């Protein structure tokens, strides 16, 4: 261990720069550690700061129940894209800055004791942009939810499709929406949670078509960026344009929910939105999943009797739910609707 010599720095440098921050809404100085404890909501004005995927999961999912899946998905550079930096360099930089492999994490866990598949995006990773990895994770989450018959929750925080992957990123819109269409056909609920910001190709695909759309207060949610709108059409933008409340007023968001109430609201919704039972799904499931599963009534009973479902024994889902799909053929064969 090298000996640390005393350094003579100006006093203000002695503090880490990210120790304090100013609330952009009410200009109150906030202590970051304190802010983390109160879910990064400004205590004086209620401004919702952005959450990292890890913090979001910690907040929403029952403690210790989250099991990440497909953590090893990694972007490649299909176009050889170089702007001021090359695309692989940007990905590496974002990975080092966030400790994530790409802009989304998905896995299974419980919310107030109810099993869900959850996919969370992180705006800190290249603006939460959707490339092949994010698209793949959303699609796998939807397919696994369809196959395992557990509700799907997606927390969006994204600027849109990832330009560096070109039209392949655009095709993720079709990929994710297609997977969610199958989820709908199979009668499995999907709750979309829109956080600040959700724009572009992410808003115009899976984020907007939730069975229930929930937004955080004052979150920026819209299709076209303000600069694009201003550049394309010379028009005055209305007050509060593209904010959660604007979407609520125009009927595209069901509820605008404060972060502290989010978990309870999701828990309540999950009590109403229960995946349609296999028998009713009928031929949607084809011959792959037998309509009678031995012991399945036990878990259904357990759900009803015991509110808290215990942790899954391993990260790959319960044995009774069948092997989860690894992207390839299995889940899709289930619902040939």
């Amino acid at each position, binding site marked *: 261990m090298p000996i640390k010599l005393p350094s003579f720095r100006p006093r203000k440098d002695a503090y880490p720069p*990210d120790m304090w*921050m100013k609330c952009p809404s009410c200009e109150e100085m906030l202590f970051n550690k304190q802010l983390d404890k109160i879910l990064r909501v400004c205590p004086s004005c209620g401004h919702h700061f952005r*959450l*990292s*995927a890890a*913090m979001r999961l*910690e907040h929403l999912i029952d*403690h210790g129940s*989250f*099991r990440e899946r497909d953590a*090893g*998905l*990694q972007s*490649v550079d299909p*176009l050889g894209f170089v*702007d001021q930096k090359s695309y692989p360099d*940007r990905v590496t930089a*974002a*990975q080092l800055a966030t*400790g994530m*492999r790409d802009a989304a994490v998905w896995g299974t866990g419980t919310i107030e004791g109810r099993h869900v598949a959850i996919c969370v995006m992180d705006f*800190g990773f290249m*603006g939460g*942009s959707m*490339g*092949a*990895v994010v698209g793949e994770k959303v699609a796998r989450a939807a397919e696994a939810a369809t196959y395992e018959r557990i509700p799907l929750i997606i927390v969006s925080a*994204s*600027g*849109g*499709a*990832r*330009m560096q992957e*070109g*039209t*392949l990123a*655009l*095709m*993720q819109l*079709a990929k994710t*929406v*297609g*997977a*969610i269409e199958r989820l709908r056909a199979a009668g499995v609920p999907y709750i979309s949670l829109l956080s600040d910001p959700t724009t*572009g*190709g992410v808003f115009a*695909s899976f984020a907007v*078509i939730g069975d229930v759309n929930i937004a955080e207060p004052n979150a920026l949610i*819209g*299709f*076209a*960026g303000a600069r694009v*709108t201003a550049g*394309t059409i010379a*028009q005055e933008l*209305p007050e509060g344009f593209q904010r959660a409340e*604007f979407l609520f007023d*125009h009927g595209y968001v069901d509820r605008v929910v404060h972060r502290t109430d989010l978990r309870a609201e999701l828990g309540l919704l999950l009590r109403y939105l229960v995946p349609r039972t296999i028998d009713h799904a009928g031929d949607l499931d084809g011959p792959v999943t037998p309509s009678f599963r031995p012991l399945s009534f036990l878990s259904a009973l357990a759900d009803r009797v015991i509110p808290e479902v215990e942790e899954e024994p391993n990260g790959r889902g319960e044995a009774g739910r069948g092997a989860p799909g690894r992207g390839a053929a299995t889940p*899709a064969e289930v619902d*040939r609707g």
Partner: protein
Amino acid sequence: MVDRLRGRGRESAVTTAEAPADPKTAVWDRVQLARNIRRPRTLELLAPMAEDFIEIHGDRAFGDDPAMVAGFARIAGRRVVVVGQQKGADTEENIQRNFGMPHPEGYRKAMRAMELAERFGLPVVSFVDVPGAHPGPESEERGIAESIARSVGLMTRLRTPIVAVITGEGGSGGALAIAVGDVVVALENAVYSVISPEGCAAILWRTADEAPTAALAMKMTAADQQALGVVDVVVPEPGEGAHTDHEETARRLREVIVERLDALALVPLDLLVEERYRRYRNLGAYTEVAQPAVAPPERPGFADRLRNLLDPGRWAGVQLPGPGRGREEPPAREEV
């Protein structure tokens, strides 16, 4: 087998004209050709291509969008439903047609037409030529994102064959909303991109002047898109480009469309829809590496501490960072 039926993977004879020395200029020339005001749009292509065409109007919810055309057509004796964007051929018509940028009601009209196609067993042919969906406030108020997502969703599950043709500009979500098909055809000088080159340059290069550079980097030409697997067939254009000869362009397109429609008609619907889902499911490049980068986001409880004691190192994943604060990085995203 289906691939062979649809001729996927077959090399199409693309006659690349004598390429200018600078690839950037070559790509930019194509972008300009794709945007040429005399380029044939849906109606100009249908006039020589179809024996008859009857247009339908209105989305039954708000109004009729002149930037989107939908209707029934007979192409070489085959009844089809046609949807497509329509730019104007001059400034006056462009204003009337919103420069070919559809509002939500346009996409909802297209969905209505496609649902009719499914119900009456008619195949769908779509013609895509759009700078992007209309980005204005009234568009947002009426749910442009929702209409695009629903339209994409409808096309992924539509139980009838779909042939999508990119005829000019394939501009982002506004294009994809009617371009999800069993077969995607593109004219030689058509372009397809996730964001306009100007928008991409403004974000990544911080100046719209770098648009040709962005166009090159995004690999947006029809031939590049074919190499990526986004486009299946590239149809060569006559002479200097499609704008010089509408009839010949329509004739060449009709040949390809009819051939594909006939091949798709042989595929059972279940297989057709499954194959279409697979087509989009498989687009996008990624790898899978073994170990996860993100540690499970949980505070060490008693069990974890015990586990750490017994098996140290296994759970000592990457340090979880705090939420993003002050990261200096240009937004890596599209904004259209």
